[in-house]
């Protein structure tokens, strides 16, 4: 009994000492950038040594940027960049929002995903205008639609520099398509499926012949058509009002997906579910309309199907899903140095490097003409000997600028739910459509 109290007392004293120590000194963790070989070469610099600047860089997801940053740090002993990575994109952007509203705690460089762009574009006074720092001169290097995603409406304010993009293509299983009597080479298949009507007919035929599904999920099918809208989807670029009920492409995407469900050629498991991953590996479906970065997901989900996949173009154009920008929050005290760093990060060489290491698809059209890029074959042999970079590049150049609006995600989830109800509960499509429109208006109402 007494021993218990003694140990509690001891622990308490230790804890207090520890807490006090933690309150006084520096933070834990070692300052681990003094051991670069450059730091000994201070003598080579002229006169007084420059003040060392440390920049914090919030990155998102697995992008391999750490390796590039190490390279930068080795070459720039006086501008050291510290990477702080978050995996969850919602948390990542909310951290930035909270830092802005708190007025402190923001990094020097923030990686911004396109899905969250509108929120920050509405509050540009919290960021440096990169046009003032020299972004204007870089504009011509990048895809125009990509550049515009991070510009104010009149183009005077540039929030971020483009990193990667996610142009959508059609991934397909060559062997399955061939067995069902469809053309198996990318060009032939693209020609056979160049309209959504032809696509549906082929899908139906495939389903009747093999008894299997043609497309992987309702979600990706819906996305593919939705993203071919003309400049705006659910929300009006002019005044932010809800236009999903009048935009013909939104209705088309909805009706087309309903048709797929009713004709039975779309796989029922939801995207990202374990069953969806398993179905990919089993060959339960033949095609996947998805962005460039989905390549990694397919490889992870379907290791047994290596070598059987190919890539071709979607019917009636391409869309874009995902991709990021590097921005400089107003709280940074070193905008010049931060800009020097980000323009280096998204340079041609580094985008090429990120493509080779992490398949982040570049947003610099000049890269598409590089021989090295054109001849790129996935080293794992997953796509046989297909030069996949060319297919992605062809899609990337077809993408049109698109306005999403701040409530895009929430509204899209409502329509996706409606489709799920049609699929799983055999709900009446017309009723689900009306219900979804009603709910979406409810959400937009709050912004008014």
């Amino acid at each position, binding site marked *: 009994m007494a021993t218990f109290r003694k140990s509690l007392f001891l622990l308490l004293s230790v804890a207090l000492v520890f807490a006090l120590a933690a309150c006084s000194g520096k933070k834990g963790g070692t300052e681990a950038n003094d051991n670069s070989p450059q730091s000994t070469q201070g003598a080579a610099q002229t006169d007084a040594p420059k003040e060392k600047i440390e920049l914090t860089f919030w990155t998102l997801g697995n992008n391999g940027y750490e390796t590039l940053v190490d390279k930068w740090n080795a070459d720039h002993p006086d501008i050291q960049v510290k990477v702080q990575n978050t995996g969850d994109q919602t948390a990542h952007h909310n951290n930035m929002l909270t830092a802005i509203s708190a007025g402190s705690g923001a990094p020097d460089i923030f990686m911004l995903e396109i899905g969250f762009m509108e929120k*920050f574009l509405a509050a540009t006074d919290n960021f440096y205008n990169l046009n003032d720092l020299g972004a204007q001169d870089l504009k011509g290097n990048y895809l125009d639609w990509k550049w515009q995603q991070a510009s104010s409406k009149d183009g005077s304010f540039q929030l971020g520099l483009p990193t990667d993009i996610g142009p959508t293509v059609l991934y397909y299983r060559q062997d399955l398509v061939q067995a069902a009597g469809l053309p198996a080479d990318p060009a032939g298949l693209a020609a056979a499926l160049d309209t959504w009507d032809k696509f549906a007919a082929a899908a139906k035929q495939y389903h009747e012949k093999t008894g299997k599904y043609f497309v992987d999920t309702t979600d990706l099918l819906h996305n593919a058509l939705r993203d071919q809208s003309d400049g705006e989807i659910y929300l009006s670029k002019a005044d932010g009002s809800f236009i999903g009920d009048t935009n013909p492409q939104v209705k088309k995407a909805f009706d087309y997906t309903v048709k797929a469900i009713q004709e039975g050629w779309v796989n029922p498991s939801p995207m990202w579910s374990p069953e969806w991953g398993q179905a990919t590996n089993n060959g339960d479906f033949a095609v996947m309309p998805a962005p460039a970065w989905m390549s990694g997901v397919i490889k992870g989900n379907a290791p047994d199907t290596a070598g059987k996949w190919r890539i071709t173009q979607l019917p009636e154009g391409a869309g874009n899903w995902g991709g990021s920008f590097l921005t400089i929050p107003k709280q940074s005290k070193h905008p010049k140095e931060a800009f020097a760093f980000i323009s280096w990060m998204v340079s041609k060489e580094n985008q090429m490097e990120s493509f080779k290491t992490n398949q982040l698809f570049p947003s610099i059209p000049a890269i598409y003409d590089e021989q090295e890029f054109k001849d790129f074959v996935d080293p794992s042999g997953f796509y046989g000997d297909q030069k996949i970079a060319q297919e992605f590049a062809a899609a990337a150049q077809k993408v049109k600028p698109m306005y999403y609006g701040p409530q895009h995600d*929430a509204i899209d989830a409502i329509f996706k739910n409606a489709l799920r109800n049609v699929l799983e509960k055999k709900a009446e499509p017309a009723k689900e459509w009306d219900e979804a429109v009603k709910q979406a208006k409810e959400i937009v109402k709050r912004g008014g």
Partner: protein
Amino acid sequence: MSQTIVAANVGKPPKRPFWTERRRTASTAYLYISPFFILFLIFGVYPIFFTFYLSFFKWNAISPMKYVGFQNFALIFEDPTFWVSLMNTILMGIMGTVPQLIVALLLAVALNSAIVRFKNFFRIVYFLPNITSIVAVTLVFSVIFSNQGMANMLLDWLGVTTDVAWNSGWWGVKIAIAVMIFWRWTGYNAIIYLAGLQSISPELYEAAKIDGANSRDALFKITIPLLKPFILFTILTSTIGSLQLFTEPFVFLGTSGTGATRPEGITMVIYLYREAFTNSYFGTAAATAVVLFLFTIIFSLINLMITNRLGSSGSSLGGAK
């Protein structure tokens, strides 16, 4: 706001204070509770006031705030999804909590009886669900409750039915989530009851036996009344916990967060979360929090009244006014 609770509180006659040097005692007591209130002032009161304040403003966390009066409340009360989320929260709370507390009590009493061996083993096993991280638990259950998963296979094998739509059916979703809550918290509450049972002195049972009481009498006349503070504790914490249900449906219905807003599984906190962090409407999110806060108080008071009717010894909240 605390005044209303005091007024509505059904008190018990006060216990005899064992101390009469009033002032010295009081200052000691204040000293003992001060750490909580100091931290509470900084990290508790401020957020609460901030939330109340915010519920009258339109704010997206980065633009300036705009005063809108009661408009945020009007907006959420007009929103059918809000009422769906309220109903879901209550339903899933009841489905997850009521059986859970009964089973927990049963397990604790069984575990506390003298004839059982391997007590420690059972205690550890019952506690396993609660030490597993909630995200991991939800992932495991997501696989069990997938459409071709173990749950459907089991039902099929029992010949009940096959193909329950666990992630989109009105009841399917609720049952799956209620099962997760039940699984996660039953052992925890059993451990709490066990601590309570161990605080009851064995001599009481001895005395009751001499008076000719049988074991059922012992359960209803001694065990349950003396456990009352613990039962009250678990009911209150479960009520609060289930009204703030978030992670299970959130992870179960889609890690990306979009599936989490499915009408079958949306809870009040998910609704709040979506308002704040998906749509950046911090005003309506704050209004939701205020409503949730009031509901929690009302439900807790209802619970207190019901519990106060159970048994008659022990003390409830407070004592003398």
